[in-house]
């Protein structure tokens, strides 16, 4: 039984003035217990929006307009208010993009923890100061922080430390699933590596299911068991991480991989993908990547490809599915 099974999730941005934008379109996915899954794509592809949708943290003007989010037997899409709040314990947790601002400047780490524990207190649970302190010390230990951090204010901590505190606070909820939204993007490279290592270790030690949202393919491939590639609000490929660097894949994935250059090479050739992502306020005809794809055919421009088996995973591409030959190059772009 998968832990999370989402079917036909749709998210729309509906501003008061201006056109509606379909940010996430008919996304279905399933996550098993204990998996570490990555969600990659360029800026604007909808990965963060999907992450927020799954954790029911969307804010206006974004709206979940359809779909079922089955989490351990409960449909999250139907929950609201108190019901949703209760789900946060032993449920789904979210770690934000930058720990920089995720902490209340006027409360210490200890106070943050106490607020969380009090909000989800069950009968008979000991929430005295000492009990909270002990739990805090254990949690900080898990994220490799000194216990002195407990009595610190956020401005007294570095960016990396604050991010670890965010993770520790999320862990205090004993979640089954944690969504990490670009957890290391705002940190410098060395700290990035340390924090990612901590996240990997935590996931192995505690066994929670993790979703890592990032635009950095390298980090994702290193940390995760499985990668989902998103483009224009759709999942276009879903593969085990160690098979991504070889073999044939969705043209977008291949193009993405082609954008990376080896910094140690004699000559660095920078690739790019010609064209720009589609305007998501307009209905999409056919495969959204077709305008920029070197393999695109007429079928691609008319029929939206479903996710079909490719290698060890799935991909949404007519050409890769073997349905059309690689005939026309008439759509090559300058």
């Amino acid at each position, binding site marked *: 039984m998968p832990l999370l099974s989402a079917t036909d999730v749709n998210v729309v941005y509906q501003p*008061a003035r201006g056109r509606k934008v379909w940010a996430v379109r008919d996304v279905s996915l399933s996550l098993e217990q204990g998996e570490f899954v990555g969600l990659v794509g*360029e800026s604007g592809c909808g990965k963060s929006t999907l992450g927020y949708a799954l954790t029911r943290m969307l804010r*206006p003007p974004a709206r979940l307009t359809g779909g079922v989010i089955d989490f351990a037997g409960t449909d999250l899409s139907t929950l609201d208010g108190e019901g949703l709040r209760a789900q946060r314990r032993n449920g789904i947790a979210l770690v934000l993009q930058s720990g920089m601002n995720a902490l209340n400047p006027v409360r210490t780490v200890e106070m943050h923890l106490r607020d969380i524990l009090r909000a989800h207190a069950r009968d008979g649970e000991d929430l005295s100061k000492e009990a909270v302190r002990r739990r805090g010390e254990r949690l900080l230990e898990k994220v490799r922080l000194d216990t002195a951090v407990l009595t610190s204010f956020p401005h007294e901590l570095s960016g990396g430390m604050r991010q670890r505190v965010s993770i520790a606070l999320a862990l205090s909820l004993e979640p089954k699933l944690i969504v990490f939204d670009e957890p290391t993007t705002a940190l410098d490279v060395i700290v990035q590596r340390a924090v990612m290592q901590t996240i990997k270790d935590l996931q192995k030690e505690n066994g929670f299911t993790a979703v890592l949202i990032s635009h950095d393919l390298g980090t994702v491939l290193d940390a995760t068991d499985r990668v989902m590639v998103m483009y224009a609000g759709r999942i276009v490929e879903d593969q085990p991480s160690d098979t991504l660097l070889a073999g044939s894949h969705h043209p977008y994935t291949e193009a993405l991989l082609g*954008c990376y250059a080896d910094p140690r090479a004699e000559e660095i050739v920078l690739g*790019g*993908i*010609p*064209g*720009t*992502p*589609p*305007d998501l306020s*307009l*209905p*999409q*005809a056919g495969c959204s990547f*077709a*305008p920029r794809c070197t393999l695109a055919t007429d079928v691609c*421009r008319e029929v939206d490809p479903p996710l079909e088996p490719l290698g060890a995973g799935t991909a949404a591409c007519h050409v890769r599915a073997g349905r059309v030959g690689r005939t026309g190059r008439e*759509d090559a*772009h*300058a």
Partner: protein
Amino acid sequence: MSLSTTTPPHGDPGTTVVVPDTPAHVPGPARFLGRALRTLWSNGKARIGLTILALIILMAVLAPVFAPHSPTATNFTPYQGPSAANWFGTTGNGQDVFSQVVYGARVSLLVGLLAGAGATLVAVTIGLIAGYRPGAVDEVLSFATNLALVIPGLPLMIILAAYVPSRSVWTIVLVVAFTSWATGARVIRSQASTLRTRDFVSSAVFSGEGLGRVVFREILPNMTSLVAASFFAAATAAVMAEASLEFLGLGDPNTVSWGTILYYAQQQNALLTGQWVLVFAPGLAIALLAVSFTLVNFGVDALSNPRLREK
């Protein structure tokens, strides 16, 4: 990813075009004003404010048309309540209150707009200089601004007005303008110092643009809504200050303005003789003018801070 924008093939939905950050384009003043008015009009609160303001301006400009009598003619029976001849009654000197209120709009509008403009001018000058030139100049100007902020406005205006030998509307305009610039200066200074570090300013300076051109063609156009907001706030404060000073007897006793009507009303104990319209009408007019400026300012605020825009 490269950013080339290519012609999409037939049948493809439109592609989005990415445009790099460009500095403010400076259109001609007439078109600029027209566009500003149209944007303000789209904001609900600002629309009401503009309407009220327009009506008051109309009343002031066409005062001889609206007012049935001369505001200063003393040929009516004094201390009368509202009647057919005198809609708002008469003052203790036998003058028609309704005509006074109509003509009074002229002075209040004049002082409000002029003093507001004067205060904003001082605020912009000091704010721009302080924001654009860090170091000693900034320190001195900031200290002066903070000092001006801290000193209570009305008592200072009272002292200044009391010392000036002549009593006239211009005294009031000058006194109000010279005491109300500090709030605006502080806001403009912080915005100017933020803009100073932006790339388009650096590139202008590098390409040899002189100080005047940089300030007036690069920085100032990016602060228009801030300056406009400061102006309307200053105008609101000016209207209230002017009325207060006149009420206290520091205005020109020979001019007819809403504040002086209230001054005479208080001197002649209008309330105790039951002439509540004499007190109500000019005060309401002051309140309406102040409200209209504030409402317009809501629109200006929403323009510059998208978070505050009404959904």
